[in-house]
């Protein structure tokens, strides 16, 4: 019986790990992009004057 539960745990872990890793990746990407955008906007407003 323990064996069958192992398979279940493995599969559920894969599902949630997959989703969360991807979400984490999206979140990090989002953050770095917004940071870069802010930086560039500051640059632009400095030079714009």
């Amino acid at each position: 019986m323990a064996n069958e539960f192992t398979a279940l745990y493995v599969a559920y872990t894969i599902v949630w790990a997959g989703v969360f890793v991807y979400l984490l990746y999206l979140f990090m990407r989002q953050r770095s992009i917004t940071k870069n955008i802010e930086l560039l906007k500051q640059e632009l407003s400095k030079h714009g004057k």
Partner: protein
Amino acid sequence: MNLKLGKYWVWFAGISAALMLITVLLAVYYAPVAASSVKTANELFPSIEGSTITVAGFVADREIMNPIRYPEDPPVTAIILADFSDYRRYLDAVVAGDLEGEWWTVEPITVRGPYLPLGTNVSATGEVVATLDSSSFMLSCDSSDDVVELSSPGEAGIMTSPISQKIFYFHMPSAWVSYVGFFLTLVFGVMYLRTRNRTYDRVAASSAELGVLFATIAIVTGPVWAKEEWGVYWRWDDTKLVTTFVMWLVYIGYLMLRAAVVDHSVRARISAVYGILGFVTMPMSLLSSRIAPLIRSSHPQVIASSSGGLSMEAGITIGIAVVAFTFLFITMLIKRVEIEESEDELEELKRRVGGEE
């Protein structure tokens, strides 16, 4: 996102999280351990005479029979009657060991262990008409007045290994949203080509990426179940597995194609065309367990063509799971499209900064 869904993403996220929680609870505590009326082979054998299809653990199509077997079970010999005109006489003949009659065709097959010979082309499922001994039984597969022919492969019930069956409540919805994702890639690709609105291209790219994510989850969780049920992780003779794998490769290619083009209008244009072209692999994967008479597949057919297939409890759970995954998909799609938008904004800003300096 132009589609005005953007500001509601928190709602979608909340709904999907709640439904996911419900799905997990239902899958673990409520959904049946096995589809109704399906028992293990050992439980079944003493009393299978006269019963209908239950003997086959799951039957994916009319050609293949797959009783639930464990490695330690003795091999089973199933004797199949192609022409069933006088089964009583036939039965007596078989019990007497005389298989050389003229008025019937027999094809004995031997089934060993959990990994069953797929495509052993016996005309499969039928009514059990006799138990020959503890490990042999007899099926009829041609309808006559005496024997009621089995109406659908779904009658057999699906997924019978008690615990690992619960994997299905996450495996199948993942596959489902990946199909949705690839379909959206097609639709928004076509819409992009017609309107040249960049928002559509962003949605197409995002849904392809999410489709690949969920297809990956489905492809990885599938073998975990298959190892329990079939005894092997992967079967190259199962059409569904192979077509899904090919579909996954096509969309990996789609993502690589996008990554290999710098100019965004060229990228949007050619990837839309490839999205249209690649979509031919999606119906092949989706329908491969449905068009069973055409190609071989032992993949469980979830939505059976007639009654049967899933028990009510399993049906409710899988229904909620599908809705949960769909909401999760929408949430992720909204966020992914937003990222695509801000990336374009970043490109634009970079160009402006670069231009001024």
